[in-house]
């Protein structure tokens, strides 16, 4: 599908945290490519390593206790991991910009919105004129749909609503026309009514800057809305990677299927959700073999699942990879689970 050069190539990324209870393997070997202009969603439960993997790109993993144990991340061929000081700061905000989860706390309460965006500009253009920056600030706020941008640039964050703040955050992130936009749960802290608007803004921002986007989320609705490709993470590893449509229609990893099946549906009557049984694994003591096997319905206690860590297999579908030894059984399994969930739902309806 993509013949272009990837803008970002991540290989074998391993991030660990030393804690009193042992070493937490937050990211345990992650590979992916990000192509210009595309939106890659990284999906997973809390603690699956999705945020940490993005923080590592920007050198934002606190060290210690964190440690980037191995791996490489190349931005147009340039190694990012291990950059320090000035070189690192030139990447942050300029090449890779970040939209944080909670716009309530990620804006500085005592600086005017306009000042904060101007700051983001000034960091990478210290010689620029203040007047030029002020013009650009208004332009950016207009771009993300803040009404009366000129007046509102002079307001403080507490005078903004949550959705407006997230717009301001997006304006700040796109200020320097970054090559990559990392959106870390950009809608999680917002009302559902505002979420859709913010997603629209994110899409517009991406179009404007032509940035490739890494969208970190646990919300499959957001994924369906925005993502071109999806990487599903479990226990610090990518367990499935595919384009969004393929992933939703024909998942090739039982965990992905579990996520999809657990979604509440409004088009059918349903009283109970269908959760994935069990708990997410401890990242200190990851299960042997396939980390998902204790919760997996497809595994059925097979020896190979318990002993052998599955690599990412290329599946029968173009561009899809899945880390399941028995991905070939997924087609049938998917049909069975869907029939079952449907039947259960019909039962409850009656």
């Amino acid at each position, binding site marked *: 599908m993509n013949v272009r050069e990837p803008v970002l190539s991540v290989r074998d990324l391993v991030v660990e945290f030393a804690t009193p209870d042992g070493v937490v393997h937050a990211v345990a070997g992650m590979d992916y490519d990000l192509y210009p202009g595309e939106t890659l969603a990284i999906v997973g439960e809390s603690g699956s390593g999705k945020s940490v993997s993005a923080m590592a790109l920007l050198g934002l993993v606190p060290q210690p206790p964190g440690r980037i144990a191995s791996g490489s991340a190349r931005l147009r061929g340039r190694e990012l991991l291990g950059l320090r000081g000035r070189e690192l700061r030139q990447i942050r905000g300029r090449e890779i910009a970040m939209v944080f989860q909670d716009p309530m706390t990620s804006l500085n309460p005592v*600086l005017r919105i306009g000042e904060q965006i101007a*700051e983001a500009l000034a*960091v990478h253009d210290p010689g620029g004129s203040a007047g030029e920056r002020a013009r650009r600030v208004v332009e950016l706020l207009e771009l993300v749909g803040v009404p009366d941008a000129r007046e509102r640039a002079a307001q403080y964050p507490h005078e903004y609503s949550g959705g407006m703040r997230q717009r301001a955050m997006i304006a700040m992130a796109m200020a320097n026309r970054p090559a990559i936009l990392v959106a870390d749960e950009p809608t999680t802290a917002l009302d559902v009514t505002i979420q859709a608007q913010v997603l629209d803004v994110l899409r517009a921002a991406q179009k404007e800057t032509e940035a490739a986007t890494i969208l970190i989320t646990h919300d499959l609705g957001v994924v369906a809305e925005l993502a071109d490709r999806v990487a599903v993470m479990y226990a610090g590893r990518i367990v499935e990677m595919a384009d969004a449509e393929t992933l939703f229609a024909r998942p090739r990893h039982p965990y992905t299927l579990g996520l999809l099946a657990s979604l509440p549906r409004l088009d059918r009557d349903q009283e109970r959700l269908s959760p994935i049984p069990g708990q997410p694994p401890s990242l200190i003591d990851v299960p042997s073999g396939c980390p998902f096997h204790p919760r997996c319905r497809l595994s059925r206690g097979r020896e190979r699942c318990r002993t052998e860590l599955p690599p990412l297999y290329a599946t029968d579908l173009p561009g899809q990879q899945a880390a399941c030894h028995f991905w070939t059984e997924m087609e049938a399994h998917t049909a069975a689970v869907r029939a079952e969930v449907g039947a259960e739902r019909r039962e409850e309806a009656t």
Partner: protein
Amino acid sequence: MSSDIRHPPPDAPLGDTAELEREGLSVTPVTQWMLFRRRFVRHKLAMFSLAVLLLVVAAALFAEQIAPYAFDEIDLRNRSRAPTLDGWHILGTDKIGRDYFSRVLFGARTSVRVAFTVAVLSTTIGTVVGAVAGYYRGWVDDLLMRLVDFILAVPFLAVLLVAAAYLGRGSPMRVAVILALLLWTNIARVVRGQYLSLREKEFVEAARASGAGDARIIFRHMLPNTLSPIIVNATLVVALAILLESTLSFLGFGIQPPNPALGKLIADGQGSMLTQWWLVTMPGLVIVAICLSINFIGDGLRDALDPTQPRR
């Protein structure tokens, strides 16, 4: 608000102000600054104190224009006079006939200058040290805080006297520097505490993610969040500095003649305190007026800057 009513998109926050205005309701956004000002203005004691302080400070700064005599003008015919309107010696004269009102004015000028210099210097040192310690933590923090502990642990007055005796003889500015070097510790501790909590805030991480360097984060992003405790502390340092400078001068280690300073005036007058009450009382009253009003202003600022106070 502007007269041309624009139509914000339906998702405009805080309701639709334009709509409210069309219905004849005025909508004025209330900013933090306005709330602060309102609270401070309503703090009667603080406002009264501010008026007193401004009066004293203005009188002190314009001493040359206001004083009827030069502070060292000797008039041997009018020695040791009680306050009188005769010759406008409204605070009397001292034992060699110098006009006491003029001397108190110039004394207040010296004291006020020293106090504000001390406040600016010690606040700057304390803020930078506290910010650096709180932001970097680790060994930098340990080192700086042990320095603070050390300064706080040594007997204050003894060090002050020794330092003043060897380094500060005479010049008001030297006295100011010595005081500042001893008074920054409190502010450093307060600022450090603030920075320790601020550095964990998400907006600091956001600033870092946008490529801001340490200095920019410390001073541009975090410092404005620490301003209220710094301001409150700085006002209290002014009062403390006036008292300490007076103490030093009283003990003879501070500002040297012919420069008049409030503490020195009291020291000179104490011998004849029972017969010439004004020599001690008048400069003493000025010291009390300055210190009390500054403390009350500090209280008012603290109350007004505290957002948890009810919106009165």
